[in-house]
């Protein structure tokens, strides 16, 4: 049955790209007719080191387009003149923002969907809507919710490149020590029967029994959305589309901050958590079994395997975990509901292929052939969305696939074996660059993990695409730090946050403050 489904999906994919292929041939002929034999583009990408296919996907797409042209005797070649990859999303966005008007930014940008709004507003992105109307079948493969967040003012400015969920990880060995039964726990979480009230009880028991040093670890940082899940888990929202305003829900935020306050006061969560170093403290604490619970992301799964975070007790040396160890030690569920009666959540920040509105500007006869260069840029992005490229990216970076066909490939053991042995039709330079990551990450355990967590996308939320959101998130991060360190109690922290919002007139105008601090709400008897 699964094989049949795979064949059907592959046939669908072949059909799907046949029409894209026609457009590729047409564009190639137009370029050749105009005497253009070489077209150059640059791609800029960003993210964790395992996600290099965010730029190499474009290199591979260019090779596939060149092959199509060669097959049709079209003497034109796409050359990716620059591949640039940086770790920091914001830095790359800012660099794009300043260099796009000069025409020196990348022709393709791979970054978080949140940057679509400001870049589209400035006119820096190519509107992909007309091309997607021409290739409607391309859209069908993507999850609809991810296309929605690629829209700005009703127009589509990006194609989803990957997505993720933020599982709530539980150490299986520590859970066993304290008697937490993990059998069917994900279902209990799903039904809202295991909430943050239960998380607290088990964390407390674990620390009291000395089964681990901490009950919970989460990330540090500023505007990242991990902690925003608390607001959603208490049934609130971050944005109200009715009036286009950000929402500051005093009740939900009070409950979230109370959890942070209680956990830190009872030493279940480090009070200096917001200052912990990603590689030196956060991950070693998790992989060395110093915490029962951990709020993370799907990408943690391969990061634990590819980075030397674990101190091997036998050798005393730091090393990456083996896939079997990750599977043996970590259980994962949705982010539990805040309290009984509420629902579990997760949160995604899909990455997007975006095309500069000046794509191909460095090529000959640009003003005369702008529409052809634009269309070719779109076709490169469409080709970079080939299920195979997307599936490879998913497994080596532990992000979730954005299309149904790529999800089907991940479930195909035969294909995984081929990928492990690099018997996949890929550009040699791409193969060479991903070889090390492939060996470290491509295995059935990791594929099963991705398949297991895919259901979380049905419960996902997206941080609002609002220009003021980053400012509000930074205030949240600030007050969480104060609460964790005990410098402010949750109620005072809310007053402080409101004071900061009101002090910034733009922010004040963009944020709607709703509800009140609940007087009769108790968490853990506090």
């Amino acid at each position, binding site marked *: 049955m699964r094989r049949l489904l795979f064949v059907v999906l592959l046939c669908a994919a072949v059909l799907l790209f046949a029409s894209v292929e026609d457009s590729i041939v047409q564009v190639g002929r137009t370029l050749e007719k105009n005497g253009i034999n070489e077209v150059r583009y640059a791609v800029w990408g960003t993210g964790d080191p395992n996600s290099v296919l965010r*730029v190499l996907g474009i290199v591979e797409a260019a090779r596939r387009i060149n092959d199509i042209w060669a097959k049709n005797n079209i003497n034109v070649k796409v050359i990716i003149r620059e591949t640039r990859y940086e*770790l920091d999303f*914001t830095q*790359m966005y800012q660099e794009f923002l300043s260099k796009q008007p000069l025409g020196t930014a990348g022709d393709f940008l791979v970054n978080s969907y949140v940057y679509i709004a400001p870049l589209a507003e400035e006119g820096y992105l190519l509107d992909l809507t007309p091309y997607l109307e021409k290739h409607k079948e391309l859209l069908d493969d993507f999850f609809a919710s991810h296309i929605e967040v690629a829209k700005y003012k009703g127009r589509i400015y990006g194609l989803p490149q990957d997505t993720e969920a933020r599982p709530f990880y539980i150490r299986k060995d520590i859970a066993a020590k304290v008697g937490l039964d993990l059998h069917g726990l994900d279902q209990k979480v799903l039904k809202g029967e295991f909430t943050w009230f239960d998380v607290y009880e088990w964390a407390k028991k674990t620390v009291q029994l000395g089964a681990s040093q901490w009950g919970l670890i989460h990330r540090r940082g500023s505007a990242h959305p991990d902690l925003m899940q608390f607001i959603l888990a208490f049934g609130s929202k971050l944005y109200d589309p009715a009036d286009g305003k950000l929402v500051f829900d005093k009740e939900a935020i009070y409950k979230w901050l109370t959890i942070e306050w209680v956990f830190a006061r009872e030493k279940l969560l480090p009070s200096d958590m917001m200052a912990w170093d990603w*590689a030196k403290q956060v991950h070693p604490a998790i992989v060395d079994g110093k915490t029962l619970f951990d709020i993370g992301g799907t990408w943690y799964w391969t990061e634990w395997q590819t980075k030397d975070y674990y101190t091997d007790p036998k050798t005393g040396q*730091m090393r990456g975990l083996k896939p079997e160890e990750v599977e043996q030690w970590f259980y994962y569920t949705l982010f539990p509901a805040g309290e009984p009666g509420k629902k579990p959540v997760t949160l995604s920040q899909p990455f997007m292929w975006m095309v500069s509105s000046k794509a191909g500007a460095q090529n000959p006869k640009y003003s005369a052939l702008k529409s052809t260069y634009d269309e070719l840029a779109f076709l490169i992005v469409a080709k970079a969305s080939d299920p195979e490229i997307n599936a490879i990216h998913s497994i080596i970076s532990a992000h979730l696939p954005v299309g149904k066909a790529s999800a089907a490939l991940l479930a195909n053991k035969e294909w995984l074996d081929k990928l492990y042995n690099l018997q996949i039709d890929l550009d040699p330079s791409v193969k060479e660059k991903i*070889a090390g990551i492939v060996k470290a990450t491509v295995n059935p355990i990791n594929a099963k993990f991705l398949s297991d967590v895919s259901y979380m996308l049905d419960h996902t939320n997206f941080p609002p695409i609002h220009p003021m959101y980053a400012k509000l998130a930074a205030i949240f991060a600030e007050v969480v730090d104060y609460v964790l360190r005990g410098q402010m109690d949750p109620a005072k922290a809310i007053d402080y946050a409101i004071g900061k919002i009101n002090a910034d007139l733009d922010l004040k105008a963009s944020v709607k403050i709703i509800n009140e601090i609940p007087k009769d709400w108790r968490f853990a008897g506090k």
Partner: protein
Amino acid sequence: MSLGDVEVRSKSRQIFYSIILIAFSVPVIMAFSMLVLSSFANQMVTNFDFSKVRFTLKNWQLLFQGRIAITGGLRENIFLYLISTAIVALGVAIVTTLVGTLSGYAISRIRFKGRKFVLLMMLMLHALPGSILIVGVYFLYRLWMPTSLNALRYFSFFYVIIARAALEVPLSVWLMKGFFDLLPWEIEWSALVDGASRLKTWAKIMMPLIKPGVVAILIFGFLAGWQDIIYVRTFLIDKTLATFIESNLEAEMAYMPLLAAAATLYLLPTIFFYISSQKLLFKVYAGGIRR
């Protein structure tokens, strides 16, 4: 010489002052030491707990291989970044020195209308931070930039050098004017009387006499170009060491010991220049020039 001068202070007092100065320097020295140690360690050295620190050359190896991550990933060409940084630094040094020495000489020797005003304006320009001027500089760049990418690449180097040097020129002109003021007219007169042109007098007679000053502004210009981040980030197409470090530093998942190695590499010319030119710079500031 007044009694308060260092030379006549008692030895115990000198030791006392030295201890205070060292105490104030400790945080800075510690910060740099930790950075250098981190570049040779498997993790960042942020305190004195060395129990988990393992010293290794791997970070330097990764850096020169251009790898920003331990496993896989795209490779960065660090040598190219080093060359770009050096081109900008040398360019700024040469332009600053050339304009500074020529203008300093002219302002010192020639009484022309508006001379005082020019001097005051230059002082004011120096007081303005480069980040304020960048908006105007950005629009000028847009006006003149060529359309071809290759030409634009060279232009961006040229523009960064000129724009960054413009910020250094006021100080260098003032400094050089001071040096030329100290040289007696008679030396120059005799050269002119012997038939040398103004330019020849400047090059053959005056310049050798103010060598410490020239070297000083050359060094300051080099360091200004080497350290610049705002202008290179805004205009330069190629990356420099500063923009490479900056673009990866903020990321939560950055492999910091590797960036510590990059930062140490970035520090080397600065340390080298300060050590090698310490005596020379002391001559310039403490006693003007020796003749």
